[in-house]
């Protein structure tokens, strides 16, 4: 009797226990568009770009006809961009513009495509991307900054006239923009470019050929000039003294060792002048970039 009672109790307990896990299904998460986007956004916020890309791609597979598809594709591009994969990012941003031409993300995608090409040092493509944003979407917030970035891209391409043209176009099209004052300052800086002191690598090389180290002094590297003067002076003096003493073997050895240093001194002077010009240009570019609040 007791045994059958225990069996009944066990059976009752079993019956009560079985539905418990089934009811947990009701508490499970239903995969909606927002949940899937949230997953990607969470990984993005943690700088887990590859995982974010995976979640965003899952979204595009699960909900291809979603209204959020354009924003998710743009976010994939941003994840690649922040992960420094500019080549892939540029391709994704381009596909946003192609697939969703009327999307509100299209101008920003175009702008970021330009930034990607800029980072890849593909300046022609960067200029074309910025130009496309400014032409296709002139009313968007990305168009003015695309013009400003294009101005700097032109500067990087050594096209000063083009750089000035873009700044003037910006000022004519968006005179009320917050960055108009910066653009005017940048124009003034561009004017100073012609007045900046430049050094001729050829003059530096010739000076160092005449007097070792003189080219370095001309190119603003006095320490290297002094070293070059004494080093080459020793080699030349050693060779001359050895010849005077008719010690031709020593003269030959010293001369053979000294000759590359003499030629290197000419090369170094021209190199120093090139570096001077580069530094002058870099300094000016830095000032313009700060004035225009450029990303890089």
């Amino acid at each position, binding site marked *: 009797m007791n045994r059958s009672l225990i069996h009944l109790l066990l059976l009752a307990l079993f019956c009560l226990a079985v539905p418990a896990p089934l009811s947990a299904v009701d508490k499970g998460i239903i995969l909606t568009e927002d949940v899937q986007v949230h997953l990607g956004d969470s990984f993005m916020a943690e700088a887990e770009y590859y995982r974010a890309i995976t979640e965003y791609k899952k979204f595009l597979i699960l909900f291809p006809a979603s209204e959020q598809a354009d924003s998710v594709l743009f976010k994939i591009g941003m994840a690649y961009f922040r992960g420094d994969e500019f080549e892939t990012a540029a391709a994704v941003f381009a596909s946003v513009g192609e697939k969703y031409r009327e999307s509100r993300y299209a101008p920003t995608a175009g702008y970021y495509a330009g930034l990607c090409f800029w980072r890849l040092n593909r300046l022609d493509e960067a200029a074309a991307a910025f130009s496309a944003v400014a032409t296709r979407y002139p009313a968007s917030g990305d168009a003015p900054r695309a013009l400003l970035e294009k101005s700097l891209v032109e500067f990087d391409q050594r096209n000063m006239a083009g750089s000035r043209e873009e700044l003037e176009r910006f000022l004519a099209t968006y005179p009320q923009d917050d960055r108009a004052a910066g653009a005017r300052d940048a124009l003034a800086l561009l004017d100073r470019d012609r007045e900046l002191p430049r050094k001729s690598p050829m003059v530096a090389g010739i000076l160092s050929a005449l007097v070792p180290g003189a080219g370095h002094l001309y190119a603003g590297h006095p320490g*290297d000039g002094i070293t070059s003067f004494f080093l080459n002076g020793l080699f030349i003096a050693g060779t001359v003294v050895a010849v005077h003493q008719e010690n031709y073997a020593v003269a030959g050895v010293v001369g053979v060792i000294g000759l590359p240093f003499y030629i290197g001194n000419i090369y170094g002077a021209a190199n120093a002048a090139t570096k001077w010009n580069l530094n002058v240009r870099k300094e000016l570019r830095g000032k313009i970039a700060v004035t225009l609040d450029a990303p890089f």
Partner: protein
Amino acid sequence: MQSFACLLIVVCLLVPVTSGHCSAPAMKGPPAADVHTHPAGIDPDPSPFSLLTTGAITFYRSFISPTQGPRCGFYPSCSAFGLQAVREYGPGRGVMMTTDRLTRCNLLKGPGPDYYLLPNGKLFDPVSRNLLTEP
């Protein structure tokens, strides 16, 4: 005959292991870091002069430099710079660049617009910054 059978079994067991090494990775992850390659390729001029200069620099790096330890204030060091310059730009230009670098490796050098100071206290002066061209 028995040993041949054993050998055959060993080979059969090894084949899948070795072929596994060559298979493509199943999991796609972040791409491998870019390896520096020069457009001209490494050692474009295997001439006797090139071999002589690279050999001399390698000899210095292997036998002479270790006696006093690392002393160059630049990164890459003058010998590494020379080796790279000769390999990438040929012996003529490479030697010119190396002697220029040796001249610049003096007590008067210091950090500035030409040389960045690295965390290890060395001045960064790569071959690519000494090509006589404005990028």
